[in-house]
């Protein structure tokens, strides 16, 4: 009886081990099952999902105009102070003064890509971009100004 158990154990154990080896052996002999995407070589074809959140950008049109009114809704919505908006008073043609953005400071090093600012924005001035290659040698370069130099607000955006 003891011997039967003993041989049974040896048999069962060896079988379970061989089962595992069969699986790894199968994948070894089927190189077509390899899943690897070769990242730096596939950059031409690599496409992120539409909703992928890589960084906050402020789209400008061809006239170097953006849609940001400087309402600071995004600044309030941001949970960790990633966005700082510095506003200025701009003289309108009709002589009135109007609030406009001076600099839209965006701290990429703090940003968690939570999308709350984009949701909060009433005028769709900011969006999430699909870029992700942000590596830098110097941390200071991660502090970005989103409005391009000399840009101004689009007509009709309140």
């Amino acid at each position, binding site marked *: 009886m003891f011997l039967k158990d003993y041989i049974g154990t040896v048999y069962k154990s060896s079988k379970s081990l061989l089962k595992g080896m069969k699986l790894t052996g199968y994948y070894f002999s089927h190189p077509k099952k*390899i*899943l*690897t*995407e*070769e*990242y*730096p*070589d596939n*950059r031409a074809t*690599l496409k992120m999902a539409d909703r992928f959140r*890589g*960084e906050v950008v402020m789209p400008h049109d061809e006239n170097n105009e953006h849609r940001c009114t400087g309402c600071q809704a995004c600044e309030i919505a941001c*949970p*960790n*102070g990633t966005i700082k908006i510095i506003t200025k008073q701009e003289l309108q043609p009709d002589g009135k003064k109007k609030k406009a953005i001076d600099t839209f400071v965006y*701290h*990429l*090093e*703090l*940003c*968690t*890509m939570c999308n709350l600012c984009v949701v909060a924005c009433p005028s769709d001035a900011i969006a999430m971009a699909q870029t*992700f*290659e*942000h*590596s*830098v*040698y*110097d*941390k200071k*370069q*991660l502090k970005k100004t989103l409005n391009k130099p000399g840009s101004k607000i689009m007509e009709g955006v309140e």
Partner: protein
Amino acid sequence: MAETEKMIFPAQLHQTADGGIVVSKLDDIINWARSNSLWPLVFGTSCCAIEMMSAADAKYDWSRFGFEVARATPRQADLIIVAGTIVMKMAPVLKRLYDQMPDPKYVIAMGACTISGGPFFYNTYSVVKGVDHVIPVDVYIPGCPPRPEALLHAMITLQEKIKNETYFGPSKTIEK
């Protein structure tokens, strides 16, 4: 990323009458070896560690670059990827691990928490606001957490930095 083509060996073939001689600079070979054999220390504190694991998995597979030899002991590691928040209690440990690593050693700060405290920058009492307060950092990758591809990009960026080092003589500076 300036060059994406694969560099086989940092040398030129010098043509002579019968055959050729492979000519190379010692600096180039050293940098080639170092940059292509970055063994990371297994060091992940939070979410970014999962993306670091993803970078090792079959889809992204950082073993293509020779990074897959993750060492559990700092003595055998060349690179420490700080993946996750560093808090006050952890900072001395991180410093110690860094000191235990043999030269040359490199640091990648992965994710917002590591670079600056990120989501935990404001109103927290225990988070170190940037790992560069503790150890010197070579490459920063923002993101929360960055994609595995972003980590690979950071490692390639680091490789480029290493390739511009000089073993004999002053170091060159590069802009990125």
